[in-house]
């Protein structure tokens, strides 16, 4: 099952990646490639919107951690936006909710970045 991924750059250096579908070992490479492309094209602040993701496994978590680390090394940031309760639970049971900033909306995510 493929992911549907759309992306936009609302501000310079900011990228919003919206994902729809199930993120697993088969589909995660698609998302990894997209995030890498955004980082390589200069995005320093990346928001991954997970409101339409109903399943995510360790490969999805792992790629988000990898992207988070890559961006942090460039003094950037990766945030998670609007995950479903099921995805929030996965973040919580693995302790990843303490690593990632999770926002209810893209506007909230970038408002937070501006205030930093």
């Amino acid at each position, binding site marked *: 099952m493929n992911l549907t991924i759309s992306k936009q750059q609302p501000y310079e250096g900011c990228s919003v990646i919206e994902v729809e579908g199930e993120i*697993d070992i088969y589909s995660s490479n698609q998302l990894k490639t997209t995030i890498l492309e955004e980082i390589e094209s200069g995005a320093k602040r990346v928001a991954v919107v997970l409101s339409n993701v109903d399943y995510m*496994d*360790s*490969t999805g978590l*792992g790629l988000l*951690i*990898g992207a988070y680390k*890559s961006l942090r090394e460039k003094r950037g940031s990766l945030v998670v936006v609007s995950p479903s309760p099921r995805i929030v639970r*996965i973040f919580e049971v693995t302790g990843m909710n303490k690593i990632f900033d999770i926002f209810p909306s893209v506007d909230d995510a970038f408002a937070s970045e501006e205030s930093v």
Partner: protein
Amino acid sequence: MNKEADSNSSTVDIVSLSIPCKAQYVSIARLAMLGVASRLPFSFDEVEDLRLAVGEACTQAVEQASSKSSDKNISITCRLAESSLETIVSCEGLPMPIQSTSSDSEMSVGMGDYAGENLGMLLMEILVDQVEFKENQKGYEIRLTKRPALNAAPT
């Protein structure tokens, strides 16, 4: 579906599934687990936990097989007892996955190295009541046992 009697003489129903050890088939195992788990009084979250844990067990096998020939199969055997569901995920001819679940290893990853293996183990251990890893001459098996919360033993 087969039936057998457990040590307490109550009936155990057995559901077996075999899928190619390839990434694109893991979702079939997850889908099957939805149907199997619905036979017991699991909550929605418990079914989802089980689905994720079994998906992780299959993912371990696919990752182990990725550098080798992909003609192997993953066997998934579900043993439905009155108050528990035991799922055995096995794959012949593959080495045992790394079992480390330390938080250090989770954080030591780069974009090219997901460390999904460790996270997968961590998730399995969190999401089901009991996880057993067994290695034998043919390969290995991961045994996941989950009991509906209503039937869980008090802690």
